[in-house]
């Protein structure tokens, strides 16, 4: 019996392993090609997975051709700012909707939920024109101000805070603590998991944010990395295989690094978010 199990396990692991390798082939190919000096303009045929002539020329060229460091910095800053704002406001609103008692609570929450059903694209044009009238186009304000109302985050936060027992709050309130005090001292420390989840979602969303920065930001100096990479794609030099792959790899590195360090939390958050629906 045991032997059968070992064989079937081995078979399963092999099958999964082969599938995994096939799935990861594009990544390996891209990385190895980007370090190959002979791939400047021609796609090697038959395909190679090990560079024929190892060199970092493609990367040097990529770093020169597009201001990728600038894009990194821009995206990092924007991610940091937006994550702080979005997660913080999600938590405050989540707390208010969960534990608060005030008039029109139900309606206000409905207004928040309704936003989730309105696709962003519906308000794209008027929002664009509005920012133009305020002279805020080609600055970062349009990319930041939206973070104050993250409907999905509010929803998740509220759901989580619901599960915190009221007794904790009430005893503090009895002692004369104000709501903000309770929020910072008692509620937030207990919200580790949901804060982690929200942070991870925000970071990934911000890094992949494309349409809105594309519309709102025109000067390359202020652009984020996803749009910056796409702009490179359209330029003359994008015909060259090597630099293009180098650029792709460079664009993907930061999130990969985050992933490698925080894999456990990320995977956990994803699985949690699915079940809690």
């Amino acid at each position, binding site marked *: 019996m045991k032997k059968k199990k070992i064989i079937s396990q081995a078979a399963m692991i092999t099958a999964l392993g082969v599938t995994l390798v096939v799935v990861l082939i594009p990544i390996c190919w891209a990385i190895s090609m980007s370090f190959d000096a002979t791939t400047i303009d021609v796609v090697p045929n038959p395909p190679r997975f090990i560079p024929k002539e190892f060199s970092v020329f493609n990367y040097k060229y990529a770093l020169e051709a597009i201001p990728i460091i600038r894009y990194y910095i821009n995206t990092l*800053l924007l991610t940091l700012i937006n994550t702080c704002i979005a997660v913080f406001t999600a938590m405050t609103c989540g707390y208010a909707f969960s534990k608060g008692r005030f008039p029109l609570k139900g309606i206000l929450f409905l207004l928040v939920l309704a936003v989730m059903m309105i696709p962003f694209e519906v308000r794209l044009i008027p929002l664009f024109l509005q920012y133009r009238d305020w002279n805020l186009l080609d600055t970062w304000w349009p990319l930041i101000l939206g973070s104050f109302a993250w409907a999905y985050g509010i929803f998740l936060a509220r759901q989580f805070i619901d599960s915190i027992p009221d007794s904790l709050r009430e005893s503090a309130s009895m002692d004369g603590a104000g709501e903000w005090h309770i929020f910072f001292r008692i509620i*937030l420390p207990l919200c580790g998991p949901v804060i982690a989840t929200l942070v991870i979602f925000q970071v990934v969303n911000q890094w992949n944010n494309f349409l809105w920065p594309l519309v709102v930001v025109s*000067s390359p*100096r*202020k652009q984020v990395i996803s749009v910056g990479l796409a702009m490179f794609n359209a330029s003359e*030099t994008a015909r060259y295989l090597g630099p293009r792959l180098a650029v792709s790899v460079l664009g993907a590195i930061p999130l990969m690094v985050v992933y490698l360090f925080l894999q456990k939390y990320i995977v956990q958050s994803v699985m949690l978010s699915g079940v809690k629906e």
Partner: protein
Amino acid sequence: MRKHIKATLALSLAAALLLGGCGSGSAPAESGQDNEPAAVTTAADEAARGETASSDEKIVLRIVGPMESESDTTNPITKKTLRGYYVIKELYEAEHPNVELELTGIPWDSWQAKLTTAAAGNQVDIVVHGASLVDVVEDLTPYVEKDGDFLDELLLKYSYRRADKSNYTQLVPTGIPISAAATTLLYDKKIFDDYGVEYPDETWTWEDVLEAAQKMTGTDPVTGEETYGYYIDGSSSDWIGRSLTGYYFSKGTTIMEYADVQMETKVNYTSPEALEGFEFVNELAKTCPKGFLEGRGAENFGTESNNIAMWYTQDMVNIYYKTESLGLTDRYGYGYSPVLETTDGWANFTGDWNMAIAKNANHKEECWEFIKWMATNQDIADWCWEIGKIPNNREAIERLTAEGIPFADMFLNTLAATPDEFTIFASDYMDSFLGSSNAFLANGLSAMFAGDMTPEEAAESIQEAFEEQAASYQ
């Protein structure tokens, strides 16, 4: 925890204000490469200096539009360093100390809408490539009447475009071209020799091109390699469309029927003559390499291992640099575009890199001075040549092509045969700015090339797209 949050928020907001909020500021030189300060030659515009304001206050000109790179780049094939557009600022400010230039290059994506919005909102003085944004740029006729002598030094006089949407049959000069472009029929002499085909000359028609392309598609008798007769860059909607429009140009087929109101302009892609074009291009596409619909297949053009015989393109300077760096300048020829059969000249898509003055600009006089300077300054001409553009300046071209550049004669003759008020973008067979015309042509033609549609179906689908667009603009 509260302290941390507050501190982080404060810092973040401060950072955002610093970096994001301030929109202006000069471009930081990106790479560590040291650029040679350009020698300030005495340009031929001493007169210009007399007109600029004499006060101490600096005049700021905001120049916005699609431009090449801001900082230096290196071409990976030729290994040449190409200076960024900061040279414009350096050169001009050195000669005009009381003027400050703010240059912002924007990407090509949706450039018309973005530039129109910016120019309408009083944020731009000089619009690069602005000639086609007729709604928001100045008509240059009064400027030229007052001060148009310098135009004699230029090859192309103005960038003409159709007037605004309620006056569409009238052409107005809205821009001055800084660089001129012309199409050429690039050809690989070696492939021609291998197959025993005669080189193209200035009398070739499109049929001659097709015949030669068909002969040279197959297996090369000398090398045994597979070769293709022609190349169309399928990744660019412009060039897919031009394969068809070039044919109409030569034959003199009338496609456009202009009306006073832009969107009442009619097109006729289903006439027998128009259909001829579709069938012709379909045959031509069969002589192209497999990857052409994805914009690939021509990476080796200009090198030893090229396998494409002919390519109708505008990119002569860059191809020349490429062949020069590989020592192959003798192998590649720069033929004339196919001849115009109903009049003199060649089917040349005279494009240009032009500059226009925004209607809401401040200091319009200074803008005009700047544009004049750009078009006539010899150092700028050198920079254009360096980055692969041909300057629109007779003196510069004569100087730069003195050492026998193979395409010099063809280029000058082609442009000389182009009438002064001609503009390809507003002609009888093409108007790239009529809504999504480029997209419609590209859609229909790529479906036909991929074999999903017959020429008749493609023509009908394009006709339908135009008619729907016109209807939607009631």
